């Protein structure tokens, strides 16, 4: 028991001596400097981050701008692209159509127009054309535009491919079904030398 108390006293004594030991002063200066270096490196890192952000922002802006330009140019191309084929979307002659072809086109337009009239409607519906296509009669062929009725036969025809909305068909005397009004579609117009459209074909 005495030894235990003695031991505690001795340990307390060693402890007092032990706690009198201070940490080396040299380390204080080294750590002070290290924290300062860290501050510098934090500053440098922040600066690097700012530069990187600025460069990234510039790059993004450039990409966005070029993308927008590309889209605009593309849209423009689609809107007013002359198709180099009369019967199919793939090819259309550079020169005006041959007179025999024009006559055939005019006949087709007149026949289709007459067929539409005989069906008792002045404004053919787009879905009728679709139905015709399903039966193999129409949309591969051009549907005469009601607004072209009464126009003199054209001596020179060209085909213009246009991207339009279903609702735009109304101005040509056609009416798109309700579900297609808001849809964008690609159509081909047969345009006379007077610039007036004679017939239409929905490409897609």
């Amino acid at each position, binding site marked *: 028991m005495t030894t235990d108390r003695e031991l505690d006293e001795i340990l307390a004594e*060693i402890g007092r001596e032990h706690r009198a030991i201070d940490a080396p002063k040299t380390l204080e200066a080294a750590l002070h400097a290290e924290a300062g270096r860290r501050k510098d490196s934090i500053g440098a890192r922040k600066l690097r981050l700012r530069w990187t952000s600025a460069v990234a922002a510039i790059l993004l802006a450039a990409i966005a701008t070029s993308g927008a330009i590309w889209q605009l140019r593309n849209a423009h191309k689609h809107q007013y692209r002359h198709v180099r084929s009369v019967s199919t979307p793939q090819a259309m002659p550079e020169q005006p159509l041959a007179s025999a072809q024009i006559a055939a086109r005019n006949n087709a337009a007149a026949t289709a127009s007459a067929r539409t009239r005989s069906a008792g409607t002045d404004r053919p519906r787009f879905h009728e054309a679709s139905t015709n296509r399903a039966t193999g009669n129409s949309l591969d062929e051009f549907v005469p535009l009601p607004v072209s009725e009464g126009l003199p036969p054209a001596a020179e025809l060209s085909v213009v491919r246009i991207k339009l909305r279903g609702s735009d068909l109304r101005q040509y005397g056609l009416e798109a079904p309700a579900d297609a009004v808001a849809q964008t579609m690609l159509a081909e117009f047969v345009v006379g030398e007077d610039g007036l459209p004679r017939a239409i074909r929905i490409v897609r």
Partner: protein
Amino acid sequence: MGMFKRLWRRRLDGELSDGDLHQAALAGSGEAMAALYRRHGGLVYRFTLQMSRNDAVAEEITQEVFLALLTQIDRFDAARGELSTWLCGIARHQLWKHLQRSEVASAFDEENAAELEFSGDGPAELLLRREAVAAVRAGMDELPATLREVVILCSLEEMSYEQAAQVLSVPVGTVRSRLHRAKARLAGLLRGEVGSMRRKPR
């Protein structure tokens, strides 16, 4: 040192909490880092010195521990314990790595021991007491590291069992039992030493 600097240093040393100082040090304040070192450096250094018995090793580990404050910021959680015990825990981790590398059982350097201040009895008693202190010191060095570190933390640094448990990452019961075992060994050593001293002819 200017007056403002002295005042600032006094504020850093006394008024600001460990957390505030730590944040300031992370933001690059050398003064805050130095204040943290002044506050806790002694504990870390003494612990590593007592365990390694090597000034250079103790200094190196102490520096590593404080640098960890700057680099391992996410590892310190103020809600889980005090900064002093966290620092001591890091020191212990580094120390164990060092001990495993070197596997040196260092001996106590008698020459570095300061003179004991013991008042009361005559020269014979004083001599006896000095012998006993030296025996306990030597006995501490002979203890396995797991027992020695408990003695250093609880008996020399006067840490509570809970604080020591945090440093050592063991349950409080383990600290208590290790301290008991360590003291029993030292007491046995002391009994033998004192007994032999008392048997010596004067």
